[in-house]
């Protein structure tokens, strides 16, 4: 078989962005995707921020199938029987070019794969890659079933579990600490109901995050994103607490309990669940990044571990797209000298270091560790809610001075030595 220039394994955001970056370069580019079409296996929350990718991929966004531009954000701390929300609206986010949108991956990825094809790249669906082809220590292609597909360079864009990076010896075995699981329902409500219930004008979107009692003390939280006609409602849970806590709660039941909360029930009432999905999320941070290059191969997106949990948001989509484009630039450069050795490909690492990806990952170096603290997901949200409940309450007794109510409550759980240490640790996020 004729040798292909670039074989990209995985037609998700990382793989397709790489292919898009390469497709007009004269190199033959093949994307192998195991699903029926790009996006048919992919899941996000999800919200994409366009500012970090607009300059790298400038002419994509006008016709892209984006859902709603986000103008409202709401963070809710959940106690067992009470909750406290901060609602933030920004006019600035309502002005073009809109900085962030909600998206649905089965639509977005499929559309992006069409763009790649228009530019001359080949996206082959229903093709599961099984292994790497090796020549000594060099990667020289991949195998799919009994088919061998030789390539000058292979890009592993196969998502968080990346069996290819594992085969190539570029990542260690996973520990539960390295990953979270996200699972969600898509609930159809129709545009009018969405706009009424979430306080939006046509086209506008909302992002809501929930931390506290719903995860049973486990690291994680709930989310709601509004799409055009549907909402994405789901949860993210760290795998480490799931394999440590023996509290007898099955993960899938937590989502139902979340939906049953009075704060949520009214929002989803009358809606029809039209899909249920789940996916892993890389959360190991910079210390658990995979090796990024070896002779004849690069790793991009979730496969490399480019994901961050910033407590109120999970990020990975922009990183997937940026790393794909930077890999494409590196490959074009390597093709000029016809040298795909690890030392030439290490230009990719150089580009990454200067990009927002590694910078963000450096900044949030300690966040994975800090977020392990279970008090952040139970005690503190509960304390804040209880405090406000006391402040707002009027009963038959004479009211205490506000300051003394607040101080008493704070002293109980937050202004303790442990509480102060915990708060202080948050500066690392």
């Amino acid at each position: 078989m004729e040798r292909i220039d670039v074989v990209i394994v995985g037609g998700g955001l990382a793989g397709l962005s790489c292919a898009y970056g390469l497709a007009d370069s004269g190199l033959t580019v093949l994307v192998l995707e195991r699903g029926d079409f790009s996006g048919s296996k992919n899941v996000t929350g999800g919200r994409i921020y366009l500012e970090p990718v607009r300059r790298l991929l400038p002419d994509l966004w006008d016709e892209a199938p984006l859902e709603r531009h986000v103008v409202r954000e709401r963070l809710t701390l959940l106690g067992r029987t009470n909750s406290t929300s901060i609602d933030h609206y920004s006019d600035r986010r309502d002005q073009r070019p809109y900085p962030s949108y909600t998206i649905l991956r089965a639509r977005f990825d499929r559309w992006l794969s069409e763009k790649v094809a228009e530019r001359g790249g080949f996206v082959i669906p229903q093709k599961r890659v099984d292994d790497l082809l090796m020549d000594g220590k060099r990667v020289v292609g991949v195998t799919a079933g009994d088919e061998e597909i030789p390539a000058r360079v292979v890009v592993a864009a196969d998502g968080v579990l990346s069996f290819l990076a594992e085969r190539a010896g570029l990542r260690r075995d996973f520990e539960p600490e390295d990953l979270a699981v996200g699972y969600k329902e898509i609930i159809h409500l129709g545009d009018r109901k969405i706009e009424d219930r979430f306080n939006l004008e046509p086209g506008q979107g909302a992002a809501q995050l929930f931390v506290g009692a719903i995860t049973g003390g486990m690291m994680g939280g709930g989310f709601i994103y509004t799409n055009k006609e549907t909402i994405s409602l789901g949860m993210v849970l760290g795998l480490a607490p799931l394999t440590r806590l023996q509290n007898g709660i099955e993960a899938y039941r937590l989502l139902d309990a979340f939906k049953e909360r009075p704060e949520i029930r009214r929002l989803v009432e009358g809606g029809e669940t039209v899909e249920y999905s789940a996916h892993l999320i890389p959360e190991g941070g910079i210390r658990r990044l995979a090796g990024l290059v070896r002779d004849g191969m690069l790793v991009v997106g979730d496969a490399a571990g480019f994901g961050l949990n910033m407590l109120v948001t999970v990020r990975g989509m922009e990183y997937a797209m940026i790393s794909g484009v930077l890999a494409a630039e590196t490959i074009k450069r390597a093709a000029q000298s016809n040298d795909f050795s690890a030392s030439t490909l290490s230009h990719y690492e150089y580009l990454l270091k200067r990009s927002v990806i590694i910078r963000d990952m450096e900044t949030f170096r300690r966040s994975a560790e800090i977020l392990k603290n279970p008090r952040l997901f139970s005690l503190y949200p509960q304390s804040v809610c209880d405090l406000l409940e006391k402040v707002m309450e009027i009963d038959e007794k004479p009211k205490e001075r506000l300051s003394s109510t607040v101080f008493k409550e704070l002293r109980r759980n937050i202004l303790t030595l442990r509480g102060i240490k915990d708060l202080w640790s948050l500066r690392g996020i």
Partner: protein
Amino acid sequence: MEIQEKLAVDAFKNDTESHITLDQEKCMICRERFCIYACPAHLYELNEESRKMQVEFAGCLECGTCLIACIYGAVTWRYPRGEFGVQYRYG
């Protein structure tokens, strides 16, 4: 909403062969059963009669959670073959 109802709205194309297999010897001595708690599709179950763990591969969302959550390494897991498995229409 029951989990079976949720899975019923998803589109699946099921292979005849399971992409998940369990090492029953390890499962036999496992006490924690992390797989049952972690699987978001609730596909793991202890068969009361045979006392063996079973996993219903037909409703698998392909998240891979069980592979990592079973810290005893009893789960052998791969992606379903090209044409098979869950087909997301929204994602």
